[in-house]
């Protein structure tokens, strides 16, 4: 199997869906010749033309609303919002329109659109270009929220998101774009709403999402040297959330560490923790559920402060040891 960068796998997924289905088109700021702020759509305008890779003015609300309108009329738009922080501008159309249309129209309409957006800190871009907030969107009925962590996942999931008949918010962590991994050639689609066991283990379950999966895997390697056998569950889709896979793992290990990139308060990690406590896994817990998450602060500029705004590998190591103590 070929090794590919996350960004290449993502682009490959977009390209294959555009080849497969003529109703798929891309729309967003600087996604044409520029190739997108992070280069995800590089080359696609040359291949598919300006009708299917549409460069827009800086108008996040209307771009998103145009996606909603086009989706209502049978197209499958993929809207790119340059930084996830800017999705706050798109909130109205995503949350009040896209997410609600099907229900409030009595099930007689559907909105098959994807909103792709890069999230996360670690680039020195400070407070307005660094936030992670998949949990914000997971709170709204009618949206699906995906945050793939590996090249293999991102390709299979972008295809699933495009083929899904609902509005899907698709979070790509900026630091993942350059991560390499195995990606099979050709068409494969991964299901939305299915967690993935990224590493099998018996001593403790780490539930990590997006970039934190990569950090947890690194931590697991270190812990293995000390004889600690970690299981890592990647929820992949946080709405809908696959509690079944999580509960099963917790019943096996009896110990849980949740690691997320979002700010801690009211985050998806809290939802996972509550789900475990509400489930039969509660009786199997040998230690309290522990959460590591971003601090409740806007992301600071200073590199050292920025680094300490979200969990790092050493925090995960420390967290696991605390649980096992």
């Amino acid at each position, binding site marked *: 199997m070929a090794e590919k960068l996350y960004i290449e796998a993502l682009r490959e997924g977009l390209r294959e869906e555009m080849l497969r289905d003529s109703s798929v*088109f891309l729309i967003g700021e600087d996604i044409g010749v520029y190739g997108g702020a992070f280069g995800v759509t590089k080359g696609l305008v040359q291949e598919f033309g300006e*009708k*299917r890779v*549409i460069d*827009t*003015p800086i*108008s996040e*609300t*209307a*771009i*998103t*609303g*145009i*996606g*909603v*309108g*086009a*989706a*209502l*009329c*049978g*197209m499958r*738009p993929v809207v790119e919002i340059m930084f996830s922080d800017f999705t706050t501008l798109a909130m*109205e*159309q995503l949350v*009040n*329109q896209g997410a609600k*249309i*099907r*229900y*409030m*129209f*009595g*099930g*007689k*309409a*559907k909105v*098959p659109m994807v909103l792709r957006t890069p999230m996360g800190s670690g680039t020195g871009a400070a407070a307005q270009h660094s936030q992670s907030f998949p949990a914000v969107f997971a709170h709204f*009925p*009618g949206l*699906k929220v995906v945050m793939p962590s590996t090249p293999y996942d991102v390709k299979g999931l972008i295809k699933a998101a495009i083929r899904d*008949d*609902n509005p899907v918010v698709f979070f790509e962590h900026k630091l993942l774009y350059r991560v390499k991994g195995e990606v099979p050639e050709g068409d494969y689609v991964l299901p939305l709403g299915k967690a993935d066991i990224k590493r099998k283990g018996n001593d403790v379950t780490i539930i990590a999402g997006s970039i934190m999966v990569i950090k947890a895997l690194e931590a697991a390697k270190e812990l293995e040297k000390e004889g600690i056998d970690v299981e890592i569950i990647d929820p992949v889709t946080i709405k809908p959330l696959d509690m079944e896979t999580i509960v099963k793992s917790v019943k096996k290990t009896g110990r849980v560490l949740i690691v997320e990139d979002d700010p801690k308060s009211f985050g998806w990690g809290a939802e996972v923790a509550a789900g475990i406590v509400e489930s039969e896994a509660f009786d199997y817990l040998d230690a309290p559920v522990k959460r590591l998450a971003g601090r409740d602060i806007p992301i600071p500029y200073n590199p050292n402060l920025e680094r300490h705004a979200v969990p790092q590998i050493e925090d995960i190591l420390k967290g696991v040891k605390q649980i096992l103590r």
Partner: protein
Amino acid sequence: MELTKEKRLWMYKKMYEVRLFEQEVDRLFKANMIWGTCHLSVGEEATAVGSIAAIREDDMITSTHRGHGHCIAKGGKLPLMFAELLGKETGYCKGRGGSMHIADIESGNLGANGIVGGGIPIATGAALASKLKGDNKVTLCFFGDGANNQGVFHESLNMASLWKLPVVYICENNVYGMSLHVGKSTAVANIADRASAYSMPGVIVDGNDVEAVYFAVKEAVERARRGEGPTLIEAKTYRWLGHSKSDANLYRTREEIESWKLKCPIKRYREKLISENIATADELDEIENKVKKEIEEALKFAMESPEPSVADIELDVYA
């Protein structure tokens, strides 16, 4: 461009339908038979009917929170509309949407909207879809004077003009955005003046003259269908009733309201049709009686329809 007798009588009937529907809804509200709130378009019938008379059946519209008239003119069925307002399972949205969310995708009505200006980018997206598909459809985008100060108005018109999308923006300027007079909300004298900022034609039309609206929209629709891009039409009209059912009308005088009632679009059209020998008073009476009967039957259907089941409360959140 001549209007056929058939089309003129259709417009008369539709305006009358809108008027009676709204008055009946007002009555049901006052009798506490309808839940929530709703926004009635009595006095504005000519804008909805004149505009929609100018498009094809397979063309599309987006509507506003004051959307009953648009829905009726686009072919909305009165029984299903009443049923929706009464929250019944047989309603357009199975009782989940109510007045502000009636949609009928099949007939090209992409929905009323509870967010002022919310439908503007959606209409623009529908027009983009038409352009990408090459289906030669045009979308009419209705909004009020209040919406013309929303950011999406500017964002959407800019993109529609850049890309020459087949969309016609129709501002129903009924003078008040809830209680705020348009003179206190909008820095230009005419909303149509804003079209020049987006390199599109801006057209002002008497919104109480159904044929004037028809001809203005017709020209814009033909332009759009030829691939020459959008038009902004400002139809000047007035709402006779309050913004919604809780409105005490403290911001305008009885005299002002009465002066606009004298410009009733239906009465005016009735007189025109008779004076131009298009129809006799008897023929128009017959149309009115027919509508009265339709309204009665529609309401009966809605009243006798079943309530939605709580067991189905979580259906249709996702496709």
